Structure formats: structure tokens, C-alpha cells
């Protein structure tokens, strides 16, 4: 599926919830389901700056497909849930697609407030870092 098809799927998944409580329950569930990363990935250089909780993001290119694979973790579950959505949408795509992606789903599922640079939960920093990986691996 393309990045946009995946975004539409996420929007669809969240459309069932009117209440913030249910949306956050979903994020928490997603956060809890995100596969744990390896201790070797929980290192300083994978830490994303500017977050109140610790967020690790690791990326590598799959030799066979040339796609970027993202893995990550956070000690705050909501942040982990948001990270899980980003991975669901952006992981396993060509670097150029990632770098150029327009992530409209965040606003559409009611998480726009997390995009504010003052929120310090690092959603903005996570998105920036993932796109940066897209740019770097595109070279």
C-alpha cells in the first residue's frame, strides 16, 4: 500500500471514535503492541531530542527492497502509540516517498494539538527525524 492508502486506513480506524477517551485508549493499545526494540538500539544516538519522555528511533535500509525500515520505542505509552502510527504509515517505503510524504492523517484523527512545537512530546521531532532518514537514505 502507498503511504496515503495507509494514512486513509488509519483515519478509517479512528473514525469510529468521537470521544477523546476512546482515541487515547486506542493509542495506548497501539503503544502497548509496538514490538520492543533491541537493547543495542536503545542508545543515546537514537534518542530524539525535545521530548519530555524518552523516544528512540532507529532506521535501516532493507537490502532487498531498498525500503527504509523504522523501529522505535518510548517510555511513555501515548508517545509510543503515536510512534506506532508513524511507523505503520511510513515504514517499509522508498526513501524519497518518506521524505516527501504529506502526513495529513495526524490532524484528521484529532491529534493536531500534538503537532505544536511547544507540546514537547516530540511528535514533530519524530516526523522530522523520519523524513530526515528518508532524505539521507535517498542519496
Amino acid at each position: 500500500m502507498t503511504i496515503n492508502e495507509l494514512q486513509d486506513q488509519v483515519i478509517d480506524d479512528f473514525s469510529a471514535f468521537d470521544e477523546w477517551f476512546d482515541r487515547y485508549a486506542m493509542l495506548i493499545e497501539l503503544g502497548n503492541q509496538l514490538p520492543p526494540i533491541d537493547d543495542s538500539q536503545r542508545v543515546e544516538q537514537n534518542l530524539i531530542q525535545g521530548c519530555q519522555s524518552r523516544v528512540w528511533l532507529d532506521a535501516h535500509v532493507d537490502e532487498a527492497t531498498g525500503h527504509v525500515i523504522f523501529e522505535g520505542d518510548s517510555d511513555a505509552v501515548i508517545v509510543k502509540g503515536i510512534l506506532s502510527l508513524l511507523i505503520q504509515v511510513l515504514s517499509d517505503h522508498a526513501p524519497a516517498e518518506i521524505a516527501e510524504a504529506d502526513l495529513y492523517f495526524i490532524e484528521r484523527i484529532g491529534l493536531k494539538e500534538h503537532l505544536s512545537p511547544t507540546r514537547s512530546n516530540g511528535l514533530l521531532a519524530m516526523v522530522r527525524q523520519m523524513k530526515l532518514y528518508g532524505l539521507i537514505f535517498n542519496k
Partner: protein
Amino acid sequence: MDIQTHIAELRQDFPILESQVYKHPLVYLDNAATTQKPWCVIRKIEEGYRHQNANVHRGVHFLSQMATEAHEEARKTVASFLNAHSPREIIFTRGTTEAINLVAFSYGEAFVKAGDEIVVSEMEHHSNIVPWQMLCQRKGAVLRVIPFNDKGELDLQAFSNLLNDHTKLVAVAHVSNTLGTVNPVAEIIRQAHRAGVPVLVDGAQAVPHRAIDVQALDADFYVFSGHKIYGPTGVGVLYGKENWLEQMPPYQGGGGIFSTVSFEHTTYNELPYKFEAGTPDFIGTTALAEAIRYVEGIGMASIHAYESGLMRYATEQLMQIEGMRIFGQAADKESVISMQVGTIHPYDMGTLLDKLGIALRTGHHCAEPVMRHYGIESTLRASFALYNTYEEVDALVAGIRKVRTLFE
């Protein structure tokens, strides 16, 4: 005034408390970060700009004299609020942080040299650590640290062992912004003075909650921020004993009165102007004085009694929540409760409580050494002011219980 019986009226003094957040009534429990402002303070700021705005200490004209008088009247109000010996001992700053930086610089220039020692505590706000570190770097001095025990109480034995011939200053919080511990500053000052060492007390979290008498404490320097005591942002206070201030060089250079400047030589202002280069925030100082009159009108003793009751109630209720951990269990504690609930990250808890209209703080509260002491990254912090209610404590407790169900 008995706050409990007048709480509804008192809350009407604070217009922001009527706000709705995500369709919930605002429950504001982030008072240690900054307090809300009563109408009288808001009006004072407006009045200042409408009727009294002219630069102070500069003009011969009517408005300038009025503004100057209001500004100097504010200094007297602060002096009497702290029971300072004289208004000359009150220096207006931008806040606690600037006041500490001022002392670290000016006292440091006059009295600190290589090999000297400055003592702080393990529970200080970064604002009472970093300026001293910078001083130590500048002078080749050494920073020494008073540890605290797991209840959050300073180890006074360790403190007295730290004092020696090289100790030049002790800087310690009156009340910890993270643990809520009320430190025995009178005893600390006594011990330090016995060793001939002056003490700076960071009163940022104490001044809003209890009456302060700098002469009874015998503090050499006492600092606080206006915005944490219902006053405006951008104004703070340094109280310093005249004897010390006289011996210290200015912090910043610039314009002011009572100084003569030539390219060869400048003679400095007398106190307190020596430390107030440039145009002061004279609107802010008069609004701060208004905030002080406001709390004095209620009575610091009443505020302290009411908030103590609220703290006791909050602590009892919060402790009944399964998995509740409170950091800071000192016998003498004030206005701040730092916690973690089970394995729920404070950031998650804070984000979801916000959705219920409950404003608190999550993070390390600019006191990373405290986090390190307990081996944690952050806490959820509720902090109280005179306008908080028992119902708001109930809302907090219910909110935490509700959020917990999401994690089960």
C-alpha cells in the same frame, strides 16, 4: 480571613478560574510554575499604563514623579512584607533566576577566588545550581552539595561537615519546588554564620505560602519571583543585607541615577540603584506591590493554614490510589506533591488529565538531581494556591482513577 468560608468569593477575584478547558471547568494545579492573577493586579497594570506611565528617576515632570513614587512605594511594600531593615536592601530583578545570577556574579567578584567553595543542596532548582557552577568555573572554585535522604529531608550533619575555611557561601531553597520540603533554613543560617559564611535563600516556593521575616531568619540574601505570588511576570526581588550589598560591585552597567560617568572612570550609584541599571519594570513593581497587599489583606497566616489543610487532604486522598508513589515525605512539607502512579509515565498521565481540564506539571521540574536521587526521569506534580478547593482535589483524584482504567 478564613479562606474556607470565603473561598467562592476569593475565586471570583481570579477571572481565569472561570475558564473551561475541553468543556471541563479548569482545575489549575500548576501554581508552583506560576500563579493566576487577581483582578486588582490586572487592573493595576492597566492603570499604570493608562495613568502613570513615564520613566522613573529621570524626569522633572509630574508623571515621571508619580511613576517614581509608585515604584519606590512598591519597594517599601516589599521591604515591609519581608521585614527588611530598609528599602535600600530591596533590589528589583526580573525574577528569582536573575536575583541569584546577580549575587553569583557580584558577590563572586568581590569574595570568591580559586579554591573557595560554594555550598548548594541536592534539591535545588537549576536556577540555584547553574549560576554557582558558572561562578565556580570563572573563579576556579568548587561546588559542594548537601545531600537529602529518601524522605526528601536535607542531611544537616553532612551540611555541617561541608562547612570549612574555604566555604564562601551557602545557597539553599526555603521550599523545594519538586519535593515540597520546607528546609530548616533558620538552622542552616545559624550553622553557616557560626562558620562565618553568608547564606542565600531561594524563597521562590516559600514566599507565596507563609510569612517571611528575613531579619528573624537572619538571611544574608533572600530571593523570590513576583509571578509565583499572584504578581506579574518579569519582576522579582533580591533582598540583601546592606552590609553585603555595599561591598559588592554592580552586576550590569548602564544608565541610572546618582552615578557619574566619564570615559576614565565611573562612580557607582548608591543602593539599591547600584544594582538596577537601565529602566526598571516600574509598572511590574507596582503590580507586584498590589499582589502583596492582596495576600496581606487575606493574611499569610490564613493562607498557610488553609493550604496546609488542603495539602493534608490531598495527600491522604491521593495515597488511597493504588500504585501511588509520592516523592517527598518530609515532616515539614508545603504546597507541592510530586508523584507517579503505578508504571504510568507522568507524561501519559498529564496528557490525559489535561483532557479532563486538570492542569498540572510533568517532567523533571528543573531539578534533575532530585530525579537522579530517586532513579526516575520525571514526576507528575500538583501544586496548590490559596484559590484551590477541596472539590478540585477530588476532581484530581477522580481524574487519576479514570486515567488509570485506560492502562489496566
